[in-house]
């Protein structure tokens, strides 16, 4: 809402605050000011210029050569505006002055004619968007006098942010009420405006009079419709006081009739519409729902197709306007209009909202109707509009105001318990305090047994309907800053710390310790990377919800490749989405992904660099799975997501119960746009579940009292036999004293036959009951060798550093 400070002072004569002070006070009342514009500052160099003579430019059809009196004698100015005419006054920028945007006016020649200055349009002065011609001022002014104060622009415009519940603040009177209270508001007399003796004739659903008729067919959507008729107007430009006030509030003057309705909209918050009475058949106004296939051409020139039931303002023959949203061009006020029918209505906010959303438009009127227009303010608004029209456009008002009112408004009454105020706010307010806080805003308080009966004024009747709403009003008017902020005692809550977020903490600690950087990717993905589609996406790249987290990380890897980074280690945790969850929602699960490429460590002068490889990946994968899930987890060759990993470099990660929880591998070349110098990219994706299944607390095992004995065993294993099978066989078959088996060496070549490799296993024997003798251990190893031979046909490598004896 754009508010003019001069206008505010006009409706609140006691308001003696600067723009900055007003902003500070509004902020503490819940309506912060986003910006303050000093309307005069940017156009300080602009003066009034009167055009004395105009002649056609000898060498250009569209240009005129004008003699302009800018106060310092007459100068020649070349002008391109079609509307320039002799005798009129315009904003004029003499040579040397500056326009908004730091444009300094110089002496120039245009097509051979000298030009010393510039006549301006509203847009060039930052006063609006109108650029059809230069801004002609209505009336005569002293040439050379400063433009801004002469036309009332020595003013500040405040951009007030109004929350959706405060429709009452969408007017100068509403903002002023918040600043000075109801008692400080006075509607200023306007030049030439007088109160006319008009009588209201009320009826429902139809009412006659003033040789016109109003009928409401849809009282659910139209709660009240007032109409006035003014005959014999002369449509023309508004006087400067009216035009400049509109400009100061950011609106564009159109003509004296329309400007009067806009003036009242901005002053009182009541949208009004003026129809050319000659274009209203009957004349009769019918407020009804649209019929199927009906259309109306709105003021912006668009032909709008209407859905059945959308509320229209019609005459008996056709639709004239979309109720509460926009007027129609066929009944628009124009130069030839002599008789005017004024509409001042109250529409159902929800209906207006539904229609304007369906039509994809929003206007000053619909914005206010949606947020609630004061149901008690219609008569004042239509009377003031009639006065202004008669003052600026002449004519004679019909003596009857029509008032179709199927739903008379009654002020809501809310019961307020003073002890409830204290219970919620933590500070007690007695009845007298409460009355003093509420009444300036228009609430009327009546004391009843142990409570206050509060009558809510019309302008707050949409959002203050409950006791708690009044409690907020009391806190707001008292001032939030006046409540103490000493911390009291509290009881601990019943909600346990979320297990998944705790798991996130543990995983971050592990991965950050391993040198990984936490990335933040979003849940969006293009179509090929997701199953769940967004109905109204921001872009094609973000048209779906991701199926994997790794996809986004690989994007991040590409981003870093493109900036020359070769050593990249990233991880992220987040939700992924699939079709078919419960309750009509997608299936949502939580995952971790990592991606890494380049060297394992930063280069050091003492050693050669080593890149990440499958063994690093596998080790990390097992560590992460173990951190996520209880029990023994495993990794084995297999396909988790064939679209990511290269065949032969894929690992399937399994939980102890055998379920697949993720995959890891070397990312396929076609999945990452990598520069030639880049190393392979390794990736991992792991289901995190909900973090509830955790590994149990460790059960302490007494430390071994007897020494361990180790034996190394190098076995020739054919390539067709996975080493894991041999390893598991050794673990299972080594007897009760075998405490562990590890792989310590892998060797090919030399005396090892082709198609086989030598795998060195280190067997660790230890007993909890006795010191193992070499004999016993050797016997166990010999037995193992024998069974390996039988099971796999595997033999120890001759001459290797084994001690199997």
């Amino acid at each position: 809402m754009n508010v003019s400070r001069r206008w505010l002072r006009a409706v609140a004569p006691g308001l003696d605050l600067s723009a900055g002070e007003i902003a500070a006070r509004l902020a503490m009342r819940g309506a912060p000011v986003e910006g303050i514009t000093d309307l005069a500052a940017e156009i300080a160099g602009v003066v009034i210029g009167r055009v004395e003579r105009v002649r056609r430019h000898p060498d250009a059809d569209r240009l005129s050569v004008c003699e302009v009196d800018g106060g310092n004698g007459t100068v020649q100015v070349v002008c391109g505006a079609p509307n320039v005419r002799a005798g009129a006054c315009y904003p004029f920028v003499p040579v040397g002055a500056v326009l908004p945007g730091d444009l300094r006016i110089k002496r120039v020649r245009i097509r051979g004619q000298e030009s010393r200055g510039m006549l301006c349009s509203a847009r060039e002065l930052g006063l609006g968007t109108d650029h059809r011609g230069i801004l002609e001022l209505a009336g005569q002014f002293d040439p050379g006098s400063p433009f801004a104060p002469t036309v009332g622009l020595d003013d500040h415009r405040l951009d007030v942010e109004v929350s959706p519940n405060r429709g009452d603040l969408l007017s100068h009177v509403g903002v002023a009420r918040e600043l000075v209270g109801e008692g400080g508001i006075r509607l200023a007399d306007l030049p030439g405006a007088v109160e006319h003796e008009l009588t209201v004739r009320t009826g429902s659903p139809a009412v006659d009079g003033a040789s016109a008729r109003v009928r409401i067919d849809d009282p659910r959507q139209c709660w009240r419709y007032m109409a006035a008729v003014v005959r014999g107007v002369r449509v023309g430009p508004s006087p400067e006081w009216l035009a400049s006030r509109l400009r100061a509030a950011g609106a564009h003057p159109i003509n004296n009739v329309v400007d009067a309705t806009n003036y009242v909209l901005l002053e009182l918050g009541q949208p009004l519409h003026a129809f050319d009475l000659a274009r209203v058949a009957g004349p009769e106004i019918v407020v009804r729902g649209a019929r199927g296939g009906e259309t109306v051409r709105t003021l912006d020139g668009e032909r709008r197709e209407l859905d059945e039931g959308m509320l229209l303002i019609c005459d008996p023959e056709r639709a004239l306007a979309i109720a509460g949203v926009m007027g129609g061009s066929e009944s628009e006020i124009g130069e030839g209009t002599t008789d005017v029918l004024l509409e001042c209505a109250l529409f159902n906010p929800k209906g207006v909202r539904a229609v304007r959303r369906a039509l994809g438009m929003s206007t000053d009127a619909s914005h206010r109707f949606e947020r609630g227009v004061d149901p008690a303010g219609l008569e004042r608004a239509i009377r003031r509009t009639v006065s202004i029209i008669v003052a600026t456009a002449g004519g004679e008002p019909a003596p009857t105001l029509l008032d179709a009112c199927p739903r008379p408004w009654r002020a809501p009454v809310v019961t307020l318990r003073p002890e409830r105020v204290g219970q919620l706010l933590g500070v007690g307010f007695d009845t007298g305090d409460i009355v003093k806080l509420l009444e300036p805003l228009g609430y009327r308080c009546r004391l009843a047994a142990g409570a206050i009966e509060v009558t809510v004024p019309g302008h707050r009747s949409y959002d203050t309907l409950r006791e708690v709403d009044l409690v907020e009003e009391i806190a707001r008017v008292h001032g939030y800053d006046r409540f103490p902020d000493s911390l009291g005692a509290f009881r601990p809550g019943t909600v346990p710390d979320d297990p998944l977020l705790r798991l996130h903490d543990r995983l971050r600690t592990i991965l950050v310790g391993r040198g990984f950087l936490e990335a933040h990717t979003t849940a969006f993905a293009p179509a090929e990377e997701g199953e769940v589609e967004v109905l109204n996406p921001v872009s094609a790249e973000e048209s779906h919800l991701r199926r994997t987290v790794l996809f986004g990380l690989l994007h991040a890897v590409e981003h870093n490749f493109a900036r020359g980074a070769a050593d990249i280690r990233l991880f992220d945790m987040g939700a992924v989405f699939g079709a078919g969850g419960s309750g009509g929602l997608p299936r949502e699960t939580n995952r971790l992904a990592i991606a890494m490429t380049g060297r394992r460590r930063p280069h050091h002068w003492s050693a050669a660099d080593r890149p990440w490889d499958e063994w690093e990946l596998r080790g990390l994968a097992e560590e992460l799975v173990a951190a996520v899930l209880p029990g023994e987890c495993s990794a084995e060759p297999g396909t988790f997501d064939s679209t990511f990993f290269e065949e032969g470099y894929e690992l399937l990660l399994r939980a102890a119960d055998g379920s697949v929880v993720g995959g890891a591998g070397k990312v396929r070349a076609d999945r990452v746009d990598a520069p030639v110098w880049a190393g392979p990219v390794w990736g991992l994706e792991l289901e995190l579940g909900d973090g509830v299944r955790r590994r149990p607390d460790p059960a302490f095992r007494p430390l071994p009292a007897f020494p361990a004995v180790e034996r190394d065993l190098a076995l020739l294993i054919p390539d067709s036999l996975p080493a894991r099978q041999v390893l598991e066989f050794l673990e299972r078959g080594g007897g009760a004293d075998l405490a562990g088996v590890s792989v310590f060496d892998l060797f090919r070549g030399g005396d090892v036959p082709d198609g086989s490799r030598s795998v060195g296993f280190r067997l660790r024997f230890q007993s909890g009951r006795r010191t193992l003798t070499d004999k016993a251990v050797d016997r166990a190893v010999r037995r193992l060798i024998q069974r390996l031979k039988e099971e796999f046909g595997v033999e120890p490598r001759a001459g290797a550093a084994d001690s199997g004896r």
Partner: protein
Amino acid sequence: MSEAGSLVDELRALEREARDAITGTSDPAALEQVRVAFLGRREGRVSRILRQLGGLGPEARPAVGAEANRVKQVLRGALEERERRFARERADTDTPARDLTLPGRDRWRGARHPVTLVVDEICDIFARLGFTRARGPEAETEWYNFVALNTPLDHPAADEQDTLYLKGGGLLRSHTSPVQIRILEQYRPPVRILAPGPAYRRDTWDATHAPAFFQIEGLAVDEGITFVDFKATLSEFARRFWGPGTRVRFRPGYFPFTEPSAEVDVKRRVVGADGSVEETAWLEVMGAGMVDPAVLDNVGIDPERYSGWAFGMGPARIAMLKYGISDIRTLYENDIRFLSQFA
């Protein structure tokens, strides 16, 4: 026999020690030292034990001898393996003198995302004020995202958050506030929770907007919770997060699910290099308020008995203020030059 037994034990201990020493070497010179120390003909520790063989009885001699030979063999193997490794790693470390001014061996340094740093810090402070963390789904229904939060879909307040809808039903939550409903449905008061997580709006990317952004929801519901508790707890948090001299301002605001509602601003004290103290401008840091009784009603909690307060905070914005980041897109590019700055 016991003498033989202790020699065997000694040999095994030596074997372990020698193996560790071998794997601990970083260059051939060190490896040679280890070889001499253990297997050197005169002073080697294994050779010394072999020399004691003569003093043993004939029954004990073979056992100790065999063990000594085994250990020698194992160690020779390990030495060779280590030598082969050094040969492979063409290490050019032949500098005769040690120069400790040379840089040490660095490791990659990992880092949490700056938004995580802020989320963790906020959650830590609130944990000390008795809050636990909670979570809810990111794909939500209109009931949880709007209606249960006292935001009718035909009210202009629903426009303030331009929502992303999903084909097949549901929407992406436009704030973390649905977690309030999810938690209050599941747990009875007293409830003191913080719900960090992503939220989504139909915003196009620019310097201050992202279609996906982090939010932290806070909620306290119990008997006797008042506006004073609300102000006190959030002020306490602000002073712990932004420093003791921080001023906190509560302005009236509007959210459909809180009544009274507030916007919370902070003004920080900044100590300059010369010791001078300056105050920043007021910074808007959260939207908050007392839980609207309609919300409590919607989850079956009696608003006459219980009351509460809630807030929503944007840790991305707070991270940007804290670390001096001017463009929100920087947080989502995942440029490692950026992320490494938070190590």
